[in-house]
């Protein structure tokens, strides 16, 4: 359990570990055949192992336990088997939040990767101010999603600047965050705005591995820009594509801060996601058992996608 959902950074290592696991076999057994000198003492790892077992595994197991109960947060509870899960799939509001979660996750994945890659290609070489531009595009990544959401809430306000611009070019003002057809897109825009810089940096790191000479040679041979991208650049940055897409997918699935600050899940549940529903059920409506069941479902969805992503990456490499 990572501290922040929806912070751009927190899923970074998922991929790193995943890639290591996928590519390198057992990464920590020495490849050299002389495991004679062992450095360090095993108990040095103890504090870290202990906190992880306690805070990740025991707590999660405890949470999973409540998923099969009807605990309300006070007093006794009964085991009700899979009843909570039946309720989730019978409730259109819950189905809606699963759909919203998937929409945001995949929309986020596509938007950040496309824009991030375009920016990385534009800023890879030749531009004189490319270092400054990288710093500027990366800037939103370091900010708190909460603070960023407040700024965007103002922009999307009925009397805010966005409607001001619309009015200026003679269009009707819109209820960006209260329109059931637009609110989810607005959340997506804010998520993508904040995180694209990170994807750009991942692609820049990948592009740095493409030798300039080969590209130049291809250019001299008259290969079109598209062909060069398709046959030289893209194969070299495949690892970056895998990393960036897994990262964005996982992060999109756990989106929370932006929804809470922008719409609170509204209007009438139109932007409710699994993470916000967990929160609402557990803490506002004190359905601890039901909330735990939702959290367990979210965990399973994330694990499934992480495994699928790994499988896809493995095939390609």
């Amino acid at each position, binding site marked *: 359990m990572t501290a922040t959902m929806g912070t751009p950074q927190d899923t970074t290592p998922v991929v790193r570990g995943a890639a290591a696991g996928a590519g390198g076999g057992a990464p920590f057994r020495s490849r050299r055949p002389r495991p004679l000198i062992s450095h360090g003492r095993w108990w040095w790892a103890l504090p870290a192992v202990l906190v992880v077992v306690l805070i990740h595994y025991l707590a999660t197991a405890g949470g999973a336990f409540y998923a099969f109960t009807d605990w309300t947060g006070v*007093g006794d509870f009964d085991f009700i088997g899979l009843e909570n899960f039946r309720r989730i799939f019978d409730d259109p509001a819950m189905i809606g939040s699963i759909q919203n979660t998937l929409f945001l996750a995949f929309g986020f994945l596509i938007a950040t990767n496309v824009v991030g890659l375009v920016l990385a290609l534009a800023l890879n070489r030749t531009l004189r101010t490319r270092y400054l531009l990288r710093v500027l595009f990366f800037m939103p990544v370091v900010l708190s999603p909460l603070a960023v959401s407040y700024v965007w809430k103002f922009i999307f*306000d009925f*009397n805010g600047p966005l409607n001001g611009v619309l009015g200026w070019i003679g269009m009707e003002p819109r*209820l960006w965050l*209260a329109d059931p057809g637009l609110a989810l897109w607005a959340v997506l825009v804010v998520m993508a705005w904040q995180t694209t810089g990170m994807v750009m940096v991942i692609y820049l790191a990948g592009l740095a591995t493409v030798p300039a000479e080969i590209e130049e040679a291809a250019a001299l041979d008259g290969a079109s820009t598209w062909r060069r991208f398709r046959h030289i650049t893209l194969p070299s940055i495949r690892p970056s594509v895998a990393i960036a897409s897994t990262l964005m997918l996982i992060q999109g699935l756990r989106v929370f801060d932006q929804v809470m600050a922008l719409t609170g899940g*509204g209007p009438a549940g139109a932007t409710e996601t699994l993470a*916000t529903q967990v929160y609402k059920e557990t*803490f506002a409506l004190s359905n601890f058992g039901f909330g735990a069941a939702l959290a367990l479902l979210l965990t399973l969805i994330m694990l499934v996608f992480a495994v699928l992503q790994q499988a896809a990456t493995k095939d390609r490499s």
Partner: protein
Amino acid sequence: MRRLGVLAAVPAVSVLTLAACGGGDEDGGAAGAAGPADSFTWAFENASGGAENPWLVLAEEYTEETGVQIETQPLPPDSYGLTMRTQLQGGNAPALMMFAPGSGQSSSVIPLAEAGYLEPLGEASAALVPEGSESQFGIDGEIYAQPTSLIPVAVTWNAGAAGEAGVEYPEDFDAYLEACRSLADEGRSMAVIAGAVPPNPGLMSMAISATRVYAETPDWNDQRAAGETTFAESEGWQETLQTVVDLNEAGCFQPGAPGAGFDAITQGITQGTSLTAFLPGTAANELMNATPGLELDTRAFPPAEGEPYLLASPNYVLSVNADADEGEKQAALDFLEWMADPENAERVTEIQGGVPITGPGENLNAAYEPVRDLLESGSYAPLPNQGWPNPGVYDALATGAQGLLTGQSDVQSVLEAMDQAYDQ
């Protein structure tokens, strides 16, 4: 503008609640002693975040009069219920706590009494409980929650602005809709709501239900509990939500209403661009105190036919922690006794901006003068959600009403969702 956060404190706050924790360390009084301690702790919702919170004022006055220190724990309303629940389970809850009556909110008192966390209260407290509402203040013949003043929830009428605009308060619903249309043409709105914050459309729906449901069937909640009716079958509830739709279609709300926050209400009312809002009487009172020159009073929502009817109930109650240190517990009980004393109760009412629990007397807050008759004749019902079994029902109403404004839901599906939540 800061105090206007008080509007968020509509008695049925069920915005996404955020967990929290109060420090919760108790001030050790005279532990184990037979007599009351000379201090105790008290937790309550502090919506406005300011020092003018009525409970803070009350605590200060009590200390001045008796010398007993009260360590107050003002907590943010959206996390209040969870904080108290976890502190009670953890055994570090304060001696005295504010709750809501019934079981329909996250800070409701009944589930806590059922779980055995609260101390039964004495005769003086029981005497204050409105007749017929005992089940919302206690279980098994014992009372666990002492009511404070009666808080009307209805229409807040911007009398000053209406006078300038030359508009009279419409006495029936058709006149209300007519006023909506003519005001909209002038660039004003008859009503202002915080459509983006579900509890406000939720409160509006409840205020409307007063005349559509509870005027005719005051015991509707009991019938629902007995399974004799459902929300979806109830003509009164259908009419209530249809009224919300009608108001929306007639242009009664300010432009951008579905996306508006509580700030829209303060702006609309203080600037006079809107003539009515749906607020608890106490919030209207605080708004008036915070804005010199603002004239607000309380009216019943115009009935479609028949007589006007109100919602009014003690929306805040006080309970004592059964697990508290004996001395502190006694000190907290003494405080409740002090509050029950008629003279002090009057002062409490004044500070809170409510109506005396015993009914309107000579000193009725001027803002309630237009509904004095209704209060005197008992033409009022408690907040409906106090009688519902869990916070999910009101949540379904509040988000459903929001959906009616944006066109996402229809009357029948909202009512069905409420039934579904009710039966869980």
